[in-house]
């Protein structure tokens, strides 16, 4: 047991700070710059986007489980570890070199996320149209709606930080014939990899947005809002 007698008295200092914060917060509504509920600061948007990726990751776990069972073995086996084939490269990959990932600018980081989820959303929508059971259709469409929300949220963060939204094809790239799988098994493989990449992207996004959270200071928030003439 190593209980020591307390040396200083930080309690008194904390109370002072707390009182000051209360006073500051109470006076905030009076400030015109922040008296606008529609325009959220970039910091808060990043937090919301982060929360959304966590929510989607959780939703995906249930969706993937159901979908892989629908595909049947070997896709629903936990040890299933197929080699990555060339055709699977159409789906945007979250895999990245460690140092490259660290060195991404905020714009590049956000743009990568935006592009990836836009493409993934397209593929998922195609899937939604083809799926057999009603339960799966319901789950998929609900997930697509949430994923759409994520894309919009990322777009919102980019706009509030002054970055242009990445341009690009909205629909699945290439002529319709080329993207169709030659047989049933390969089609299922495509679906498997789509879900895998989606899962990995959601894990990566949590880390991307953690980094962004730390790098976007509150001061930027006020500056941007003032620039918009509030």
């Amino acid at each position, binding site marked *: 047991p190593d209980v020591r007698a307390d040396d200083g008295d930080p309690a008194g200092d904390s109370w002072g700070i707390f009182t000051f914060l209360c006073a500051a917060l109470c006076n905030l509504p009076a400030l015109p710059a922040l008296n606008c509920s529609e325009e959220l600061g970039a910091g808060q948007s990043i937090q919301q986007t982060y929360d959304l990726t966590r929510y989607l990751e959780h939703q995906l776990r249930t969706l993937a489980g159901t979908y892989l069972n629908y595909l049947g073995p070997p896709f629903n086996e936990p040890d299933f570890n197929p080699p990555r084939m060339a055709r699977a490269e159409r789906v945007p990959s979250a895999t990245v070199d460690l140092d490259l990932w660290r060195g991404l600018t905020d714009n590049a980081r956000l743009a990568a996320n935006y592009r990836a989820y836009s493409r993934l959303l397209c593929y998922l929508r195609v899937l939604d149209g083809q799926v057999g059971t009603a339960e799966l259709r319901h789950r998929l469409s609900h997930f697509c709606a949430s994923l759409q929300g994520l894309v919009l949220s990322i777009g919102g963060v980019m706009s509030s930080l002054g970055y242009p939204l990445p341009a690009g094809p909205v629909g699945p790239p290439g002529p319709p014939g080329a993207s169709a799988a030659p047989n049933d098994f390969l089609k299922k493989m495509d679906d498997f990899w789509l879900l895998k990449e989606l899962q990995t992207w959601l*894990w990566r996004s949590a880390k991307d947005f953690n980094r962004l959270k730390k790098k976007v200071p509150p001061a930027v928030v006020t500056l941007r809002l003032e620039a918009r003439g509030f």
Partner: protein
Amino acid sequence: MNVAVFRSMAPVFPKMASPVRSACCVVLAAVVVVYAQRHSQQDSHVQYERVGADVTMKCGSMDWDAAVTWTANGTDIDESHLNGSYLILKNVGLSQSGQYFCYEGSSWHLKYQTNLRVGTPPKEPVLMCRSNNYPKGFYCSWHLPTPTYIPNFFNISVIHGTKDMVCEKDSPPKNRCHIKYLQLFSTVKYKVTLTVTNALGKNFTTLTFDEFAIVKPDPPESVVAKPVPNNPRRLEVSWQNPSSWPDPESFPLKFFLRYRPLILDQWQHVELSDGTSHTITDAYAGKEYIIQVAAKDSDIGTWSDWSVAVHATPWTEEPKHLTTEAQITETTSVSTSSFMAPPTTKICDKGAMVGSGAMAVCWTAGLVVAAYSVLFI
């Protein structure tokens, strides 16, 4: 063999003077003999046999009907174990490991020797892989569930998709190796295969996992719990990120705190999404608490093991506390000669206060009690 080598040494120095030549030869011979003896002991034929097997040892090139004597670890072996000049050991056990020598009957020339090692083939090894330094890499460690009693060799292979990766062995603990991640956020699983081989057989085990699944930080370090002055129900707990976690900025950790008074079995839990300190506000006054903290990456992997347990007792108001105690003990104990000793220890233990102030308090309490006893006896 030794003699032949000695003889071959002679023509090497034909031009040297005789006494010098003989001296050189003697020294050389001695060196050769010593070397050969040591060499024969280390490099002597080693024979590995399974526990429970029947072993037949032949005395080198001797005929079956030759007269020989076998010894095991210096003790002669009874003739009942011999079949002609062959030594038969049935159902060998671990205690029968050792040096076996076979000597020709009359001349006592050493004809054959072997080092018998009794053991077992390896059982399936236990393999564990973990990333406590995400995103730098991961390590794998292994062991055998039961000993084999003979030397074992481990070989580990790591395959990531189509790529073979090298797992670098750690120098102290040799049954551990580490790998650096080349890419992050991989969709392809890692497949680790550990093969263990010994003279009696081989076995292996495989682990397949995703990059995220094996993330488990080390427990938080430097956990400190302090009472808060003038707050009998509070305890201030603080800790540090585990030093093995390389990048808490980009890969923040979240924490789980558990605490209970020593006298109860039920733990209370608090999950903290960030920060490395917390104030417990519902501690039972005056009770000693045990506190532990665990860490986890905020998004992936599993919780660390619990940190080292820390003990703390919330602040209590001492002087008032003691006076009441002294009065109570004084009225309950009737005037006996041993009146003084028990109350003194009781008062000191009650608050469980450790520190320089406590000793002085004890003595004051003792004096107070002594004063009362003098007044009432």
